[in-house]
């Protein structure tokens, strides 16, 4: 343990209002949700002395509820609760898969969806799923609340649109996501693994082509939404060797890196292969096609 617990000061507000008030007064406060990112940084010494704002007492952030045609998941909901919720199980199977493959059980009991998003790691596993499903973030400060599409949240490597006095309070997901869905995490092993690559996609066939969102983890400085690829699929899907052309386009556009977990070449190839896996399934699920 390289961090010193005596260097940490902890605030544990009892309500969201109080938390936002504290944050407004002291924007240097570091938000602590499940702590599964923050305490790793404490352990390795990189966090250093800090004042922490502990959200764990805030029931407001731990709810999952329907709001119109959306499902609202509180930022403080942990992976274990996501896996157990009937609406998530019935309607958002991709999110269940991502939650099941995050860390292992102990992490799933503590780690939160809000923490995964706010942490803005390019390797976050839930984020590609959330991008593919088209999530809106609810951000609140003492004085204002705003809704931001998740796409617009990630600015650069570990830099987000979150303001110093804001908290993520909840995520809004469509209750009826598109029918074609795919998620695959390729980690360093089958549990307790950080992604080498992960790909999530969700879409539907239209008269013109395949309307979908495709997002990737661990291939760019930020969680990556593949807009050019999506534009290609919207008009070209179904024509000739469209699947291979799509994979080629994706791979040509990626600039992944060699790092301690994998290589750029591997990441690019696997991203292409996973996209092909999704597109094969999409083709098989195309109305009026027998899938071959």
């Amino acid at each position, binding site marked *: 343990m390289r961090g010193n617990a005596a260097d940490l000061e902890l605030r544990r507000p009892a309500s969201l209002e109080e938390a936002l008030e504290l944050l407004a007064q002291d924007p240097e406060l570091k938000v602590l949700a499940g702590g599964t990112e923050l305490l790793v940084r404490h352990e390795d010494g990189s966090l250093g002395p800090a004042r922490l704002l502990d959200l764990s007492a805030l029931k407001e952030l731990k709810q999952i509820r329907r709001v119109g045609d959306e499902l609202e998941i509180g930022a403080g909901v942990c992976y274990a609760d996501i896996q157990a919720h009937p609406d998530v199980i019935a309607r958002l199977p991709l999110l269940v898969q991502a939650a099941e493959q995050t860390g292992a059980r102990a992490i799933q009991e503590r780690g939160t969806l809000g923490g995964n998003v706010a942490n803005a790691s390019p390797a976050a596993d839930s984020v590609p799923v959330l991008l593919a499903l088209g999530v809106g973030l609810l951000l609140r400060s003492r004085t204002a609340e705003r809704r931001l599409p998740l796409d617009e949240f990630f600015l650069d490597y570990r830099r987000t649109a979150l303001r110093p006095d804001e908290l993520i309070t909840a995520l809004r997901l469509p209750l009826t996501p598109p029918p074609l869905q795919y998620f695959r995490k390729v980690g*360093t*092993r089958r*549990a307790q693994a950080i992604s080498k690559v992960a790909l999530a996609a969700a879409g539907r066939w239209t008269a013109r082509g395949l309307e979908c969102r495709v997002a990737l983890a661990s291939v760019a400085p930020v969680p990556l939404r593949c807009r050019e690829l999506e534009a290609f699929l919207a008009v070209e899907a179904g024509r000739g060797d469209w699947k291979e052309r799509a994979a080629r386009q994706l*791979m040509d556009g990626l600039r992944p890196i060699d790092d301690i977990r994998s290589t750029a070449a591997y990441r*690019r*190839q696997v991203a292409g292969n996973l996209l092909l896996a999704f597109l094969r399934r999409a083709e098989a699920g195309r109305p009026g096609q027998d899938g071959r």
Partner: protein
Amino acid sequence: MRVELEPLPAVLDLRQAMAEERADVHPLGPVVKEIRIAKGDPEPVWSRAAHVVEDEVESGAQEQLYIEPQGMIAWAGPEFVTVTGSLQCPYYVQHGLCAVFGLPAEQVRVIQAVTGGGFGGKEEYPTVLAVHAALLALKAGRPVKMVYDRAEDLAATPKRHPSRTLSRAAFDHDGRLLALDVDFNLDAGAYVTLTPVVLSRGALHAAGPYRCDHVRVRARAWATNTPPHGAFRGFGAPQSCLAIERLLDKAAAQLGLDPAELRLRNLLQSGDTTATGQVMREEIDLTGLVETALELSDYRCLRAEFARANAVAGPEDPRRGVGLAVFLHGAGFTGSGEKRLASRAGLELDGQGVVQVLAASTEIGQGAATVFQQITCGALGVTHEQVRVAQPDTAHVPDSGPTVASRTTMVVGGLVERAALALRAALVADGLAADADPAAVARALRERGRSHGGERWIESYQQPDWVVWDEENYRGDAYPTFAWAAYVAQLAVDPLTGETRVEEFTAVQDIGRVVNPLLAAGQIEGGVAQGIGFALLEDVRWQAGRMANNRLSTYIIPTALDLPRIRAHFRETPAGYGPAGAKGVGELPLDGTAPAVLAALDQALGARLARVPALPEQILPLLTPEATHA
């Protein structure tokens, strides 16, 4: 003070060391130890043999990853040093402290604290840490505790030696092995640790369990500028077993034989001689062992089935393979090592009639304490309440040697058994009936304890006199006995990602009499798990000679989800010379797991990998059609 530093070009891996042969890396030269084994004369064979097969295999460093990192507490004064910590070998630590502090053994006390696994990693390094902590304690005049955090431990402590083996074999038309030439190389790192001994064991296992009249082994340990490599479960044998098994797999492909069939034609039999000229006196049934493994794993059916399925596999269908490795592991210290050690262990009877096992052999999670207690109970004829195992403390227990080399049950267990039999004989002389039940033996112990409390029964190891070893020329009886094994791995490779999943693992071995079936199976399961890590996952990433991935999140070992069902099956030929014919088991599973996995990958991929760990990054290009290459 002014310090001027001039960076010199460093030698950072085995390939570079072998290519440059730089003399300035180590005072002993580029090669810090060389061993040669010669039997017959391979030279004339190469030109007349029907087939000659050449191969090259590499393996990376592997971290032991014991549960707690290295840690030590020391007290020291001008007249004494006392340490306690996580360690495998109390008397090694005592020896090191005596040398550094110039104190006699009576003034240096080493107590083993509860230790969660060692795998060789707590064999040598605890001495270094004990010296550091004791020097600080002496200077400070206060007790000093030093505990590495995981990152320090991973970065600094010795790991399994990386290896590179170039080998050549000659076969006749029927696939009989005529000659073998093995050039076995280890990366020693910057300092000489137990490297010479690791190299020795590696060399002695380099010819595998095969009969061959003409053998050359040249084994060299090369100095580099990385942290030194050292002891790790298997001790050089996993590297050389991997090389000989890879060579046989390549030969099978070249000769058009099934790899299992090629092995069955060449297995060592009782009466044969090994590469060192050791005559196999013990009863060996390697053919039976291999056939059992093939049957239990359904090898022959699977092999045919996978060949068919792989040929027509679609873009997302897993490619499957099944592979066999056959191997041996010498039990106990090499050659005259046990004679030199002259281990002592035994029992003490206390005033209440409770028997304490006295041995410096440590319980590190492998079950040594259970086995000692079990052996003592068996020989004395009492139940377990009557027997305890003393904490290894150099002030209290005799030197039973280090807890290494798969020797604890076989060698030290044998001493404990003899002491227990001697105590039992004394009880009989006191008037105990020969067929007394456990309650009667306990009564007799209490009675004797009252009058003879504190009495000790210590036995010393004597090597069987037929064991003759010529250290100079590497000829003779390398080990008094061997454990034998045949392992089969079955796996699937995902063509989208190159990830390998071992689906079934069958481990058949003969370790002589199995003293404790549960613990023996535990040794096999744990060893196979570690071997799967060695084969597929565990990759020490060096950057400028430093371990870059020194975190548990970046140095990847298998979790339970990464492991198959492991079926451990024992055939018992009580030919060992431990208690009732037991042999060693601890290191054996590390030798054969990686070669079985790589053999299975050969079939799954239709291509050969010559390096472990075999990572998805290396596997995927073999599976990806050119069309989608970037």
